């Protein structure tokens, strides 16, 4: 099997890479703002779990992946999908339950999957995909196709025993899998310190995994740490664990408005003001003179137009016809 590496081949300079990551983070933010809007206007069924604030994690890690590498994702998965290369139009369509969606409307927000971009699927079971990602790494190793698998999950997944089972398996078999823990401080409505004893990184090193912690609001740092673990895994040196400290700006889902009983407004403000991954990178790009604000605004306008078009596409797209309900139960 051949390894598709066009994306990383195009990485000629650090500057290009930083701009690509900037663009990607912005795309996610704009995407999620539209999700919020669609949901609030009652156009989106179900629940919407926004990734706003956490963009640097998905983007920094996926920048280090090849197109045919694998990811698994979570209920808060839009950012991972986009960062791995999914198109906003088909994503919006899926979110609205339309036929043109990635899953023909059958999956919805929490189950977007796409073989073309190596996306094994978002998962609505906390830690539900840790086995899948590990298995994909196992297959990659056995087939010798040079791929790696990245398993994204929130720190809530640290509560699920299956994570420890597969970390043990991954280390025993030296599988090319990286577990990326997005510690956004909260599960649904509970602070992680109330649900997490000991030190998170030790939970990975106890099983022999190579582990690293990183500021999840600094996309360049995420990318660097992610790359190291990914390339190490790709070389056959075994699995890694990346702990990214981050924050979700909005509620657990769009309807989670009155949040003060579980977290102070001041905390939210602080993260938004001082630790925003897009602001951080903007500042750096400008400082380094790798971009100017005109250029960045132009990019934003372009992305905004693209996102609005994608929303338009999804809103006007047709629903699947009722007979489809019985299709695809079996392959």
């Amino acid at each position, binding site marked *: 099997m051949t390894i598709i590496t066009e994306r990383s081949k195009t990485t000629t300079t650090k500057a290009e890479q930083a701009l690509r990551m900037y663009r990607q983070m912005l795309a996610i933010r704009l995407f999620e703002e539209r999700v919020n809007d669609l949901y609030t206007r009652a156009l989106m069924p179900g629940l919407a779990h926004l990734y706003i604030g956490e963009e640097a994690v998905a983007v920094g890690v996926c920048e280090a992946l090849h197109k045919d590498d694998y990811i698994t994702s979570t209920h808060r998965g839009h950012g991972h999908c986009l960062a791995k290369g999914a198109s906003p139009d088909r994503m919006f369509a899926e979110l609205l339950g339309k036929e043109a969606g990635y899953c023909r409307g*059958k999956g919805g927000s929490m189950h977007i999957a796409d073989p073309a971009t190596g996306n094994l699927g978002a998962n609505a079971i906390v830690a*539900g995909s840790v086995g899948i990602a590990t298995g994909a790494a196992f297959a990659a190793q056995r087939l010798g196709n040079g791929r790696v698998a990245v398993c994204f999950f929130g720190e809530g*997944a640290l*509560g699920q025993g299956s994570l420890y089972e597969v970390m043990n398996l991954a280390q025993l078999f030296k599988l090319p899998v990286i577990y990326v823990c997005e510690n956004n401080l909260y*599960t*649904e409505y509970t602070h992680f310190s109330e649900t997490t004893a000991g030190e998170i990184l030790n939970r990975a090193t106890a099983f022999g995994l190579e582990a690293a912690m990183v500021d999840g609001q600094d996309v360049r740092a995420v990318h660097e740490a992610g790359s190291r673990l990914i390339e190490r895994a790709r070389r056959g040196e075994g699995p890694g664990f990346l702990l990214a400290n981050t924050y979700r700006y909005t509620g657990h889902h769009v309807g989670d408005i009155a949040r003060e009983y579980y977290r102070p407004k001041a905390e939210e403000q602080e993260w938004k003001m001082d630790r925003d991954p897009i602001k951080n990178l903007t500042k750096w790009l400008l400082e380094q003179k790798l971009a100017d604000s005109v250029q960045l605004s132009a990019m934003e306008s372009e992305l905004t137009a693209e996102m609005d078009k994608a929303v338009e596409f999804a809103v006007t797209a047709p629903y699947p016809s009722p007979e489809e309900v019985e299709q695809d139960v079996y392959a």
Partner: protein
Amino acid sequence: MPEVAQREVTFAQAIREALAEEMRRDATVCILGEDVAEAGTPFKVLSGLVEEFGKDRVLDTPISEAGFTGMAVGAAMTGLRPVVDIMFGDFITLTMDQMVNQAAKVHYMSGGRWKVPMVMRTTLGATRRSAAQHSQSLHAWFSHVPGLKVVLPSTPYDAKGLLKTAIRDENPVVFFEDKMMYKLKGPVPTEEYTIPLGVADIKREGNDITLVATSSMVQVALGASTLLEKAGISAEVIDPRTTWPLDEKTLIDSAKKTSRVIVIDEGYGRYGVTAEIASVIAEGAFYDLDAPVKRMGAMHVPIPFSPPLEDATVPTENSVFEAARALCNRN
């Protein structure tokens, strides 16, 4: 209950009241689950309990369904009466070993020397646009397991009375709540009351056909019975209220009276609750049935996200009405 003083409460409130009353009555009753304390669960069913009973008796756990269910088994054996909260019925998959290989068997395997007085509260039901991993009705599994009891309340009155009984029961009891029903209002007595497990309730008397319905399907059956009445068909609606113990006599007696039966349950029809109930009736009323017992359950597909697809998967007032009319040969 015409002479009894009544109040109107929601289904959620009925459950909360049952818990609060039992927690006041018995200091060993406690609640374990995710986001059960300050958040009062995502459905707000438990709001206010932590304020009254404190964090020592209403405990937020990590996302460790197997772990805290297992803890409940041990705690129940040694002096507490834990009520565990499994946020969505789909997550019972993670607790099967603790419920089936441990909780259900401890009393028997120990020759009656240990007992496990615990309750698991969880949900069932689709049509919430929650997709395949948050929409299942898996109560058939537990109904299959000797040592467990399984409760499926369909009204605030039943919910409160049955939950109080479940908490006092000396055995592990699984209590399934339809998540679409939490806001449903209904009368409950002002005075304390309990409802025994294993006693079906005739929700409506009739002569031409028996609709046996569980949980979420009781309202559907009652709706259908109104439509049937207009079509000149008198339907009896029976709610078994517990699938185990099962009140076979009431079901069979009704079948003998009406000679036509439809069994409606929101779980999958195949190898599900309707199969058992239909078999019991087909055997017990064999010589009185004028038509085969008909079963209606969820379609044999993972529940799809897309609204027009999802709506096709579950029985509705209309589909039950049509089926009943066809069974009575009146078109």
